Every structure is written in structure tokens, then in C-alpha cells.
């Protein structure tokens, strides 16, 4: 009896040592939902299958805050995090995430190095982009039988296109959108928004439809408001509307004019326990064909130019993805790339101003 116990303990200890020698398993924290599921299918499962290292996807509705809390508490449970662009700047400048050497990223099929293949802003010293998503206008086609809206300006034309408007309740995307609607060219939006007059101008434009607005906070609310006919037009995340159109057959359509392109990034928390594996995973996931593969599961575009060409159909096998992706050239033509640097500097000030404006009658 005792001998068996000793043998058992020794075996357990040995296997423990063996497990330590091998790196991983790793956890990958994402925003979850449909995107988390797509990441799981396109990156996490293949990684485990090919590398033999257990990787697990963890759902989290606010990865940057969790990352900050974990690094500050010195108790890091995830090795890779998915965060938005503005968080990359903040986290990197505060020394909360590890630098990523661009040399680990694979070159494209024709030999273009990763650094030249990625879109502008997609590579950062501490992060690499996962995908491109956008905030676009979506409308209910049944609401406008006599002619559909085609531009940002139409969003503010409540006479010509009657009905309530859904808008995300935060200044980011909304301020830019208001200026675009007021006729500011996309490449000048952030210059104008940097001046007090520009901010006033944006609020004045929003004032013109303030009584007609239903403000939403969670991404799922936008398609719901459209489906309920609570609004006829709304700002929405393109992936959510795609799901509603393709998976649920809703009569929705996009206006790509004034789309606001933003990116999600991979980051590794400072002091991650399995840093090497985490970097391996990021390199694995930045392969162009694999990036294109993500678009098979969700309507987000790849951040590498060489990947765009390999985008195929949706997982249903019939829907061509290109018309729905924010990176497709025809869609991206009149889009604005979100300036994370601007928001890192002005977020607190504009958020307070925005809340004060909202609260005022």
C-alpha cells in the first residue's frame, strides 16, 4: 500500500516536471461572441492541431481592462489578448504589453516582408493587427422603397429619409461621422476635430438630429433596433449586420460612404508566463492565408494586402465575402481610418463633453 503510494507520488511529480519543461498550454482572450468563435475556428484550433500545444480561447467582454488588472496584480492568466487600436497605444506606452519583433511575422507568398505587406497602422511596436472591422451605416431596405440612402449626408436628412437614427453612445466614431456628414473630407476630419471649432461643428451637426436618435451601447443592439423598426438607419458594426443579412435573412443593406475603419490587435501582456508560445501563436495567426481564412467565419477583412485576394466564401459555401468586407477596395474607397493617436489624447475630454451634451436637453 505504502509502496504504491510512493510510486504514485513519484510518477505524479515526474509528470509535473515534464509538463513544466514543455511550454504552454496558453490562453487567448478575445472579445468573444461571433468574433471569438471565428478566431477559435481560424486560429486557435489549427494552432493546437499543428503545433501540439493546447491553446484555449477565453471570452471576455473587456480584454484591455482585464489585461491591465492582471499585469498590475502580477497574476497573468492569459498569454495573448485581443484589444482595439486605441488600447494598443495606451497599453504599450504604459509598459503593460511586450514589444513584438516584426521579424517573427511570416512573409507573404510572393516574398514581400510582413512590414511592407500590412496596412498602414496595422503593425505597432507592441502589437499586430488581427483584422479590420468598420462602423458603417446600415439601413432597413423596407423603410425606403423609393430610393435608398447613399451617403453620410443622407443619414442626417431626416426629411428625405424619415425615421429614427441609431447611433453608438460614445464620442469615438460619432464625432468623425458628424463631421463627414457636415461635408468635411475624410482626410481632414482629424485636423478639424483637433480644433475647438471643429468639435463645436460636430456637435452642431449632431444637434440637428438629436431628437431623432436612439443611442445604443452594445453591438447587438444596432441590428435589433433595425429589425424592430425602432430605427430606419443606424450606425453599426459591419460584422453584426452581415450576420443579420446572411444568417437571419433580414432586409438590411450598407452604405459604405464614411465607414470608419478600425482594427483589433494581438498583444502579449508584460511578463506573460508563456511568452515564447504566445509569440509563436501571433506569428502563426499572421500568415496571409490564415488571415483570409478568418473571413470565412466572420465579415472582417484581413489586415495584410496579400491576404485580400485569397478571401473566398462564407462558411455556408455560397456567399461571396468580398462585397461585405470593409477592406474590399470598392468599400474602402470612401472610408476613414480611425486615428487611435487622436483618441488616446482626446478621449477623456471628448467623452466628458459628449456626456454633458447628451445629458443636456
Amino acid at each position, binding site marked *: 500500500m505504502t509502496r504504491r503510494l510512493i510510486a504514485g507520488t513519484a510518477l505524479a511529480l515526474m509528470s509535473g516536471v515534464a509538463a513544466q519543461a514543455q511550454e504552454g498550454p496558453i490562453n487567448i482572450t478575445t472579445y468573444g461572441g461571433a468574433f471569438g468563435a471565428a478566431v477559435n475556428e481560424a486560429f486557435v484550433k489549427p494552432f493546437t492541431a499543428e503545433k501540439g500545444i493546447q491553446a484555449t480561447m477565453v471570452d471576455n467582454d473587456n480584454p484591455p481592462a482585464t489585461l491591465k488588472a492582471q499585469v498590475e496584480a502580477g497574476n497573468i492568466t492569459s498569454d495573448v489578448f485581443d484589444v482595439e487600436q486605441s488600447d494598443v497605444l495606451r497599453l504599450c506606452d504604459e*509598459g503593460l504589453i511586450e514589444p513584438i519583433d516584426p521579424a517573427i511575422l511570416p512573409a507573404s507568398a510572393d516574398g514581400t516582408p510582413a512590414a511592407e505587406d500590412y496596412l498602414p497602422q496595422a503593425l505597432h511596436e507592441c502589437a499586430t493587427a488581427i483584422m479590420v472591422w468598420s462602423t458603417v451605416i446600415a439601413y432597413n431596405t423596407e423603410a425606403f422603397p423609393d430610393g435608398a440612402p447613399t451617403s453620410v449626408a443622407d443619414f442626417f436628412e431626416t426629411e428625405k429619409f424619415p425615421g429614427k437614427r441609431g447611433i453608438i453612445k460614445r464620442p469615438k466614431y460619432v464625432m468623425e461621422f458628424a463631421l463627414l456628414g457636415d461635408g468635411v473630407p475624410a482626410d481632414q476630419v482629424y485636423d478639424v476635430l483637433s480644433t475647438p471649432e471643429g468639435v463645436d461643428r460636430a456637435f452642431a451637426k449632431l444637434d440637428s438630429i438629436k431628437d431623432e436618435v436612439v*443611442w445604443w*451601447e452594445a453591438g447587438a443592439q444596432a441590428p435589433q433596433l433595425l429589425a424592430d423598426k425602432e430605427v430606419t438607419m443606424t450606425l453599426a458594426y459591419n460584422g453584426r449586420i452581415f450576420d443579420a443579412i446572411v444568417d437571419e435573412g433580414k432586409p438590411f443593406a450598407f452604405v459604405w460612404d464614411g465607414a470608419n475603419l478600425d482594427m483589433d490587435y494581438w498583444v502579449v501582456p508584460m511578463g506573460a508566463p508563456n511568452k515564447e508560445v504566445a509569440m509563436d501563436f501571433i506569428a502563426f495567426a499572421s500568415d496571409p492565408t490564415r488571415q483570409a481564412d478568418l473571413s470565412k467565419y466572420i465579415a472582417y477583412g484581413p489586415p495584410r494586402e496579400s491576404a485580400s485576394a485569397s478571401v473566398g466564401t462564407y462558411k455556408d459555401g455560397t456567399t461571396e465575402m468580398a462585397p461585405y468586407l470593409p477592406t474590399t477596395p470598392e468599400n474602402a474607397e470612401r472610408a476613414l481610418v480611425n486615428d487611435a493617436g487622436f483618441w488616446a*489624447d*482626446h478621449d477623456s475630454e471628448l467623452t466628458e*463633453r459628449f456626456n*454633458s451634451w*447628451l445629458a443636456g436637453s
Partner: protein
Amino acid sequence: MANALDPHAAIATTATGLTDGALRTTDGMPLVRALARSQKRARRRAFLLVLPLLAFILITFVVPIGQMLQRSFYNDGFSAHMPQLSQWFDDNPRGAEPDEAAWAALATDLQAAAEARTIGIVGTRINYDVPGTRSLFTSTGRQVRRGLEPPYQAALLDINDDWGSPALWSAMREASSPVTSNFYLAAVDRTRADDGSIAPVEERQQVYVMLFMRTFWLSLVITATTFLLGFPIAHLLATLPMRKSNLLMILVLLPFWTSLLVRTTSWMVLLQQQGVINDILVWLGVIGGSQRLQMIYNQTGTIIAMTHILLPFMILPLYSVMRTINPSYVRAARSLGATSWTAFRRVYFPQTLPGLGAGALLVFILAVGYYITPALVGGSSGQLISNMIAMHMTDTLNWSMAAALAALLLGAVLLLYWVYDRMVGIDNLKLG
């Protein structure tokens, strides 16, 4: 006097017959001490039984909340990473013009912070007080990493003119001490002017005081509505025969057991402009198709949904108190000539006050901190202060500001609790 037949006398004799006059146990220990000892043992056992819970509460609740609240007045984001400049501020009084020594300290600190990748923390801290300065720190940091030649004032101003701004230097002086009142000032729409005096922030930036007022006002309204709606139901529950009252009780409890999110979403389905209630009103011809009522995504929506969600917290304490009220009191009052209104007002209602007090306190305090429901149905005018706290926790990551707002909210609730205790008396509270 001592009568052998008097039992009292017999005991008295026995008691006084002992040497020191004290009762003893069989092993000769004074009874008082034996009792105290056994009680002490019982108390210790009770304490040991409570200990796991106490430790749990301390470790998972008191300590983290204390640490979080500490952030509201303690933020060493600047002072910890800019030691030389902080030292210069300590040595020189407010109003002293930054001399070359100050600029040299600034340059050295910036260089060190840029090396250590902490410059973002420093910039973020100053950005809270002077918006738009975060990039000044990070971009300058990138340039000074390569080294900087004296004179430092000229060199830094050469990189960016903004380094000369008095507002920036004033903010840096404030931040040079980790203990700061700035977050509390900001939480009441105040700010520190360049000379250190306290001034209101620009009118179009003011938001928190108004939100605090709105939070307390809406909570009061919700408490009053739950009382008006809950009182008759609780009375019915307490007076109906058991079988019927059980059924009614289930109707009260069923929504209570349903997820908060489900209940909030159901209200969205009911109240929205293309929703069930508006559809019925249009179908009945009460309102025209184009005049659908806006009942949600505003204060009305917040009040309706929160009243419904908090209603059980009013009904249950009221019910538990009402059940113990003897119906014969009211009957007695009636038989003595009181009208039913007088009997209710002077006999029945005063007896329900402990339950009302408990219900009102529960509902009010829950309402003050409510977050999900106002976030979903509040629109722009039905937001409460908790939504601001959540925003600072998760969106802007300004945890110091969130802590300051939360501390003010906690303080206000404690104050109200104290006032309540003084006016009503906390002993009059009955939770069940």
C-alpha cells in the same frame, strides 16, 4: 421567622450555609465562573464558525474595495516615474518660475521614463488634468530617448512649444504628490486653475453633479413608486387566505427569479415605439400611427423598468411585517368609531412602518447603484452615475476617477443612512 415548612426559608438557609455565600458546581468551582467559562467557550466556537465567512469577506470584499477606493486619492503615476522633477516641486514653492534646474530635472526624468517605458503612465496621469497632453509626453519621450543637450529649456521647447504652458506645469506640480484631491474635484465638476485655486469646469464639460442629482432624484421617484404599487400587494398577500396568497406570492417571486437582463429586455419589447404597447394603443385608436409614444430610451424607460425590477424588494419586507399585525387592532379601532381611513391611518399604517423603512432603504440603495437597466433603456436622459463609473472603469481606464465617483456615491449613501437612523431609527427596520 425561620419556619421549617417555608420552602423559601429552606433555600435561604442552604445558600447562606456555605462559607463564602456563592453557589458552586459539584467540583467546587463558583457557578459564576463556570458559567462565564462555558459562555466563553461557546463564543469562541461561534467565532470559529463565523471565521471562514469573515476571512472571505475581508479578503474578497473589504481589502479590494479599500484598495480600489484608495486610488481615488492616491495616484503615483507621475511622482513614481518622475522623481527628480517631483523633488524640484517639493523644494520650490508654488508660483516659482521653473528655472533651468527644473527643466534639467524634467529632461532627465523624461529620458529615464522613456527608457523604462513608463512615460505613457506619466502622460496619462497628466492627460487627466490637461487633456491632449498625453502625446506630448510620449512623442517627446521618443525623441529624448536618443539624448538631449543642455540648455534643457531651449531643447525641450524646441521639441514642442507646449512644454512652456503654465497649465501643464501647474498640473505637473499637482501630480508630483501621489496624494491628490484632483479626482474628487473633477467628480464634482471642479478643477484647479493654473494658480492652484479651485474653479468650476467649463459649463459644457459639467456632467457629474447633475448626474448625482439625477441619480438621487430618480432613486427617490422609484422608491416612491415601488411603495405606491407594492403596499396594496403586500397587504393583499398578508390578508388573503393561504392558498390564494401563495399563488399571489409566486406571481411576485417569479419575476424576482428571472434574470435581470431578461426582464429589462422584455420592457424594451413592450415599450419601444414599434412595441407591443404602442401597437395596442394605435390599434385601439387612442393615438395615431405617427404619434407613437416615446416610452423607452429616456428617463421614463429607466423609471418603469427599474420600478418593476425593484418591486419585490419593497413587497417582501412589507409583507413580512404586515403578516404579524394583529387584525383585531383595526377591528377594535372600527368598533370604537373610527372610519376605515382613520383606522388605517392611525392604527394599521404606523405598524407597517418598520417594513416600509426596510423596503424603502433597500430599494433606494439598490437604485442608486443600478447600472445594467439604465444602460440599456436609459437612452441619453435616463443615465445614472453608475454608468459613468462603469465607463471610467472599462472604457477610459481612468480608475482613479471611477474610484472617486464611487467613493462619493458611497459617502452619500452612508450619509443618507445616518440621516435615516437619526430620523426614523435603525431599530425600526425590519427585514423579515
